[in-house]
C-alpha cells in the first residue's frame, strides 16, 4: 500500500506562560493508505497533539507533514481550513454536533463548503446517514438521540464529503460498552469495506483491538508499534 501520511522529524512545542513544553519530540511516521491506526499512550503523551497535526488542526513547530503528497505544515490558516474541508473527516469524543440542527442538517454541514446544490447535499447526507444506520432518524435533533446515535451522526458528517482520511479522537470515550462496540464496528466497516484510512486516538485497549495497527506514544515519542490480526 502506498503511503498516505508522511511525518518527518516532527516536534511540537507549546508555550505555557513562561514554560516551554515539548509535547512531541522528533516523531517519524508513515501511515499507509487504507490503514486503521490506533494511537495509544498515557495522558500527556502527545497522541491527541499528533492527531491534531495529522488532521491539520494544528501546525508542527519543526518537521514536515505530508498528506497524499501535500505539505500541510506549510499551509496558512485559511488554506488549512480549505484542505481540511476537502480531505479530513473528524469524529470527536463528545460528538460536537450543532444542537439546533437536525441530524440531516448536521451531516450536511461539510457539504456547505462544496459547490453542491441543496438537493445534492440533502441526497448525500441521506446516503451517509443510511450508511451509519440512522436513515430513519434524519429529522431528529441531537438531544433526541442517544450518545451512540449522536456519534453515528458525527461519523456520517465525517464521511459525507468522502474525505481522504478519518481522524477520530476518543470516539468511544463517552459511550457505554455496547454503543462503543457498535461505533468501533462501524469504523472497522468503513475501513474494510469502503477503504477509508482511519487514525484513532484511544485510551481503551479493547477499542484499539478494532484497529489494524496500534502505535504507542510516551512523552512525545513513538515507543512501540503493534500490528494486529484483523478482528
Amino acid at each position: 500500500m502506498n503511503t498516505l501520511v508522511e511525518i518527518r522529524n516532527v516536534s511540537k512545542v507549546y508555550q505555557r506562560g513562561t514554560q516551554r513544553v515539548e509535547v512531541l519530540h522528533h516523531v517519524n511516521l508513515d501511515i499507509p493508505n487504507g490503514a486503521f491506526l490506533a494511537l495509544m499512550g498515557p495522558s500527556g503523551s502527545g497522541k491527541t497533539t499528533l492527531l491534531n497535526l495529522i488532521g491539520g488542526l494544528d501546525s508542527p513547530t519543526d518537521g514536515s507533514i505530508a498528506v497524499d503528497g501535500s505539505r500541510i505544515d506549510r499551509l496558512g490558516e485559511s488554506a488549512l481550513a480549505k484542505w481540511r474541508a476537502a480531505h479530513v473527516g473528524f469524529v470527536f469524543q463528545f460528538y460536537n454536533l450543532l444542537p439546533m440542527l437536525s441530524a440531516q442538517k448536521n451531516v450536511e454541514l461539510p457539504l456547505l463548503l462544496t459547490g453542491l446544490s441543496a438537493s445534492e447535499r440533502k441526497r448525500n447526507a441521506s446516503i451517509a446517514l443510511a450508511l451509519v444506520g440512522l436513515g430513519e432518524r434524519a429529522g431528529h435533533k441531537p438531544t433526541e438521540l442517544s450518545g451512540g446515535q449522536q456519534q453515528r451522526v458525527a461519523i456520517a458528517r465525517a464521511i459525507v464529503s468522502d474525505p481522504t482520511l478519518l481522524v477520530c479522537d476518543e470516539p468511544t470515550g463517552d459511550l457505554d460498552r455496547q454503543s462503543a462496540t457498535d461505533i468501533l464496528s462501524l469504523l472497522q466497516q468503513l475501513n474494510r469495506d469502503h477503504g477509508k484510512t482511519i487514525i484513532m486516538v484511544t485510551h481503551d485497549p479493547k477499542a484499539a483491538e478494532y484497529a489494524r495497527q496500534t502505535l504507542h506514544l510516551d512523552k512525545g515519542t513513538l515507543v512501540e508499534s503493534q500490528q494486529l490480526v484483523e478482528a
Partner: protein
Amino acid sequence: MKYFHLVWAALARRKGRTIFTLLSILMAFLLFGLLDSVRSAFSNTGQAGKDRLLTFSSINWGLPLPQSLYERIRAVPGVGKIEYASAIGGTYQDPNNYVGIEGHADSFLDIYPEWQIAPAEREAFLRTRTGIIASESYAKRFHWKIGDKIPLKTAVYKKDGSTVWTFDLVGIYRISDSSMQSNENTVYARWDYLNEARQEGGGTVDWFAVEVPDLSQIDRVSQAIDALSANSDHETKTETEYAFYIETLRQLGDVGLIVGSIMGAVFFTLVLLTGNTTAQTVRERIPELATLKAIGFSPSSVLGLVLSESVLVLLLGSSLGLIGAAVIVYWVRSTMGSTIFLAPVGEDTWLRGLALAVVVGLLVAVLPAMRGMRLRVVDALSGR
C-alpha cells in the same frame, strides 16, 4: 443564503434570550420610529408660503391691527391678492376638544390654493354668513356633516353675551401640502360674521396675508408694508409665511436635538445590552464555532456567521419596531387627524432605521465575531 439556516438556528438556540433581545430592540426602534415621525413633522416645512407674506403686530403675534390697513397694503406696488383674518380659540362639546377658529376675508381660498374644497361648498362658504369649513379629519373625528349646526364654546363674547358661537358647516376641505397640514386643526369662518358678532375688537384683524407674484420683489414689498405703520401705535412686522413657520417651530424648541439626544441614550443602552448578549452567546458557542472551523469553515466564514446573526436579530427587531411605530402613527393620525405633529413613518425613516440596525448589529458583534474568527480550534475543542 445557503448559510441562512445556520444563522437562524443560532437565534433559536436560546429562545428566551433571543425573544428578550428582540423585544428590547423592538422597543428601541418603536421609539425611533415615533420620534423620527415627530422630527419629520417638525422639519417638514416644505416650500409652501415662500411667495406669501404675513403682516402682523411687531409687538406680538395676535395683537390686533386695524382692518383699514387692508386698502393701504393693497395699494403697495408688487402686492397681488391679499386677505386678513382674526383667530379665536374654541372647544367642541368637551373642554379637551380644542378647535381653532379663524375668521377670514372672502379672498382667503384664492390666496391659499392648498386648501382643497368642492366648488359648490366654496360658493356656499362665500354666501353663508355663519358658514364654516372644516377639515376632513375634524369632520371624521367629530362626526360632522355638511348642514350640521356646530356650537363652539370660545373665550370671546358675542354681542348677545354668549360665548357659544354656532356655525353652519357648509364645506369640508383638505390641505394638499403635507407641510401645511397642521392647519387642519382649524375651522375657517367668515371674518365679517366674527367681526359683527363679537363684543370687542370690532374693525381689527390679527394678520394680513399678502401674495407677491414676483419673488424678487418680496423684500421690497415687505419693507414697504411695514413702512405704512412705522411710528404708529400698530407697527407691523412682515415676513414670508415660510420664515414665520420656521421661526415658530424654532420657538417650540430644537426638536432635532431633543429627539437626537433621546435616541442617543436609547441606542447607547441598546448597544450595551445587545453587545453583552452577543458576547455571551458567542462565549457559549465556542465549541460549536470550533467544530465549524475544524470541519473546514474558514475564519472569515465564522466571522461572517456571527456578524450575520447579530445583524439578522437587529433587522428583525427593528422591522417589528418600525412596523409598530407605523401602525401607532397611522392610528393616531386617523383618530386625531393630521393636526397632530406626527408625520407618517415613511421610506426615509425605514431606510434610516434599517441602516441604523445594520450598523448597531455590526458594532455589537464585531468583537465577539473576531474572537470566534481567531479562536484556535485545538484550544477551543479541549476547553482551554
